[in-house]
């Protein structure tokens, strides 16, 4: 009889984070996957990061996760999105070599101590007295555990659609996971059906590259991971993406296929993401738009395939190809694999707690698409949190929950648990109400202390961040007190195209002028010999942090005030087994929703849709009594 502390089912982006974190925290982990060479496989686009998703990767990395490391080592194009905006919405993104990504994931996971890869397919969750005890595998073998993390992606009863053709499976050419949904349903879990899609893969040589608009990577690529050795980065040669567009002719052809669209004929029951519609959806919903943008993304350095981002579809392969041939640059294109839609089971996430442990079965955790999310980064973030919490629970330590004001990961999980979702959930920066505080550039300052505490971040790295914090704070103090005199500085100001000052001005005041960066002001006129300035000038990262905090001081302060104001509600805790049904004064809908979500704080309760302000007032009255 095989027994692990933690069993992780599924070796995708959530599964490998969960398994890696659990094992490194000292638990024995069994990672159950159908194919050991499919670890961290990218089912859809060969890219990591993007708006808000890039933030997630930086946070995962600061907590000691592996996604950032894998991405850095396998990235073939790095870009910082939103560079024209403020630092809070800068988002790192990379194109990955799909094959290398998966190989790198295996290279990291395989040698991990305490971690065993079990090539099996789980078909049943074993539960005794409301507590998880293990799984039953397809081979008939039973594996036992203290905690079970389900991160099965799109595989639960996965069904792929291309036109009216249906194939059972979680990913092209791979078997679905059958039995788990039914086993969970029997235990009392509610489940639903979601849909997502992936665009066609095109043959690289058949594209007329010369006439396409090129989109290169950044000149100075930045890595995701705080641990990546800059002297070696980027590890791989860098390549470009290309852009093309659909036009009304293309749309006309696609419309011919609507009659045999599984989406429009009602064959697909699952709900798809509104932010990532299929091409046919775009044509219908935005009928007045004459063109849609398409990105041609390389699948890898050696790959002969191109991923056509923006053209996900479930129309028949014939229609897809006919339409592709009318697109500029794709006139002669060969389609290696048509786009397809995939439907899968998910479990509405109000059934899990903020630790990702299910409310129904002790020791059972859900992470990734099973919770209704979409995206590698969202999945990885949940995998990491589930892995950490499973380990903490086994070790009898307090649970780990990130606040919304602390991390995008906190926003992600709070949103899922509190509001649930009826479409695949994707992270956006606008979901984070304290966005200016949750920057990709300060993920280490926000979160590395936790990663270190759990033993997922090495001590020297943590010490570096901890020491830098002191430099930043003393540096900001220096800039706020150090004054320049008009007679000394005015010439420099005017020469830099700025306005003169009357008598004196602090460095921090001058730094708020858009025409200056902090470095220029510190280096001006020998000020750099003073210790406050020297410390900043010697540490580029500290300098960057100080500059951001000084330049945007007013806004950042307002965000802190908003956090402080909400803190009262966030810190008003609701007891674990609080019976909402007993409070008759609550609105019927409010009572039902509260009972379902079982919020842990008034703050969380106030975010549940259907819970009215009066309900919150009533709860406050009750909690006081």
């Amino acid at each position, binding site marked *: 009889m095989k027994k692990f502390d933690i069993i992780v089912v599924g070796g995708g982006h959530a599964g490998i984070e969960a398994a890696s974190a659990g094992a490194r925290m000292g638990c024995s982990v069994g990672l159950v996957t159908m194919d050991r060479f499919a670890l961290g496989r990218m089912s859809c686009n060969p890219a990591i990061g993007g708006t*808000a998703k890039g933030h997630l990767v930086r946070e995962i990395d600061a907590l000691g996760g592996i996604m950032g490391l894998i991405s850095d080592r396998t990235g073939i194009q790095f870009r910082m999105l939103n560079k024209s905006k403020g630092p809070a919405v800068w988002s790192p993104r990379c194109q990955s070599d799909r094959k290398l990504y998966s190989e790198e994931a295996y290279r990291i996971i395989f040698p991990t101590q305490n971690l065993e890869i079990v090539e099996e397919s789980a078909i049943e969750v074993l539960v005794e007295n409301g507590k998880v005890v293990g799984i039953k595998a397809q081979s008939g073998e039973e594996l036992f555990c203290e905690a079970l993390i389900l991160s099965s992606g799109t595989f639960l009863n996965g069904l792929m659609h291309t036109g009216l053709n249906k194939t059972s499976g979680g990913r092209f050419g791979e078997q679905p996971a059958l039995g788990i949904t039914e086993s969970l349903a029997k235990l009392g879990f509610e489940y639903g059906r979601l849909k997502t899609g992936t665009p066609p893969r095109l043959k690289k040589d058949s594209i007329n590259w010369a006439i396409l608009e090129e989109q290169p990577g950044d000149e100075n690529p930045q890595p995701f991971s705080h641990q990546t050795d800059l002297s070696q980065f980027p590890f791989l040669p860098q390549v470009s993406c290309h852009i093309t567009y659909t036009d009304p002719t293309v749309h006309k052809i696609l419309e011919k296929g609507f009659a045999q669209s599984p989406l429009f004929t009602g064959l697909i029951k699952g709900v798809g993401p509104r932010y990532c519609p299929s091409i046919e959806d775009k044509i219908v919903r935005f009928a007045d738009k004459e063109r849609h943008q398409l990105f041609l993304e390389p699948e890898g350095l050696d790959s002969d395939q191109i991923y056509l981002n923006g053209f996900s579809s479930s129309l028949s392969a014939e229609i897809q190809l006919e339409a592709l041939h009318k697109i500029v640059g794709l006139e002669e294109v060969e389609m290696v694999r048509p786009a397809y839609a995939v439907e899968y089971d998910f479990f509405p996430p109000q059934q899990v707690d903020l630790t990702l442990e299910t409310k129904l079965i002790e020791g059972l955790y859900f992470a990734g698409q099973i919770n209704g999310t979409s995206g590698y980064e969202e999945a990885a973030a949940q995998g990491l949190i589930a892995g950490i919490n499973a380990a903490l629970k086994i070790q009898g330590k307090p649970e780990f929950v990130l606040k919304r004001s602390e991390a995008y990961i906190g926003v992600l999980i709070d949103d899922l648990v509190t509001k649930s979702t009826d479409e695949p959930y994707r992270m956006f920066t606008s979901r984070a109400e304290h966005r200016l505080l949750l920057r990709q550039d300060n993920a280490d300052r926000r979160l590395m202390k936790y990663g270190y505490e759990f033993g997922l971040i090495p001590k020297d790295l943590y010490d570096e961040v901890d020491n830098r914090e002191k430099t930043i704070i003393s540096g900001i103090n220096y800039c706020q007190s150090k004054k320049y005199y008009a007679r000394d500085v005015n010439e420099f100001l005017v020469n830099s195209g700025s306005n003169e000052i009357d008598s004196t001005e602090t460095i921090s005041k001058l730094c708020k002028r858009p025409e200056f960066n902090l470095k220029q002001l510190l280096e001006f006129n020998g000020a750099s010999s003073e210790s406050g300035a020297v410390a900043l000038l010697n540490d580029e990262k500290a300098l960057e942090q100080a500059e951001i905090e000084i330049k945007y001081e007013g806004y950042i302060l307002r965000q802190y005030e908003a956090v402080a104001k909400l803190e009262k509600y966030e810190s008003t805790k609701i007891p674990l087994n609080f019976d909402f049904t007993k409070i008759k004064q609550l609105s019927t809908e409010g009572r039902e929703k509260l009972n379902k979500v079982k919020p842990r704080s008034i703050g969380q309760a106030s975010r549940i849709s259907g819970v009215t302000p009066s309900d919150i007032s009533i709860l406050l009255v009750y909690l*006081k009594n």
Partner: protein
Amino acid sequence: MKEDTIVALATPAGVGAISVIRVSGPQSFSAVDNIFYGKGKIENAASHTLHYGNIKNQDDEQVDDVLVSVFRAPNSYTGEDSVEISTHGNPLVTQKVIELLIVNSQVRLAEPGEFTKRAFLNNRIDLAKAEAVADVINSRTEASFRGARNQLDGLLSNKVNELRSQLLNSSSFIELELDFVEEDIEFVNQDELLKRIDSIIIEIDTLLESYEFGRVIRDGVNVAIVGRPNVGKSSLLNYILKESRAIVSEIPGTTRDVIREEVSIGGVLFRLFDTAGIRISEDSIEKEGILRSQETVRNADVVIYLEDVQQAESKDLFVDLLNLTSPDKILKVVNKIDLNKDFSKDADVKISAKTGEGIDLLFEKLKEKTIGNESYTEKTAIVTNLRHHNCLKKSRENLINARESILNKMSGEFISVDLRNAEMNLAEIIGEVTSDDILNNIFMKFCIGK
């Protein structure tokens, strides 16, 4: 929560045509049945029905003949089973009925604001409405009552919701640009955004301005009458009180210092203060009165500076007055024009407290000075509540910040911070975000069941 039954007098204490006693809670029907003798049992009566009968005491003696209205949960004001007993308007009768209910059943006297608190807790009214109810109860005059009513009907809530959704719309455009940078979509034009924000600021300004009006119709206008001895301050006051049939009250015991009268004219409550004098005197007994008069002038919304047409102008007194209040609050009034119609004195209003000439104009001017010429109809959302006013003010500040960010060409996420805060400030008005402090404060203000 204790689900007990409460009782209180729902109409003002005192003698009137009728008084209404309200009972609310699960025992309401049985409690009334214990003392009420009519055609059938209230326990069996349908909701929203009216029953005639007698209230009798333990000795089977009739206390009063009454009408009983039945409201079954949840279709009552409080959301609970409740009964309203209309008795004759005699304090002795109402007191006796309440006493009988308490003695014979598990009924207790309601705490101030408890009926409305229950209505709020039972989700019958939202926070803005709960506050409006407090205002209805506190309203002293007809216009004030109208102001409170329209808020009850949700005019303010509607207006605020409308502004909120406009803000949300603008925010959405900004977020689109931040989160979908890679997409081929048109982004919001900064001028357009500025225009939208400006129009919301204007709407908030209108609401803010209505507060002064709202405050006045709610709290009344404080008017101090200042003038040298014998210019006719008392005559003016007496004339107004004699002619006006709408005397609200007379505050006794203050005659030595400041005399105060309340009078409702044209739906607005005027609180008139006759000051003893504001010049510092050596006389220590007078000193106390003078200090009080000065305080009265400082707190006044309008100061009537009264002069005698026959006397020379007292420059000193006017200068003293300017030290206590601002010139735009002063209304220069010349009295005794019946004695001399041909005079050259400069004045805002000319009156005769003896014949009443010019008094109507005086009140017009008083109104103008305090609530301006704005005409607020029952269709206009009016802010009468200080908390709402503060939320609107904060929202406006945040919008101004957002405006500044746009003008400084800041990126969208900075603009968004202030827009979202502005939206949250508005949400607070309708109780989206609330704290027990606010609640306590609101419930404290209810005077039901006094």
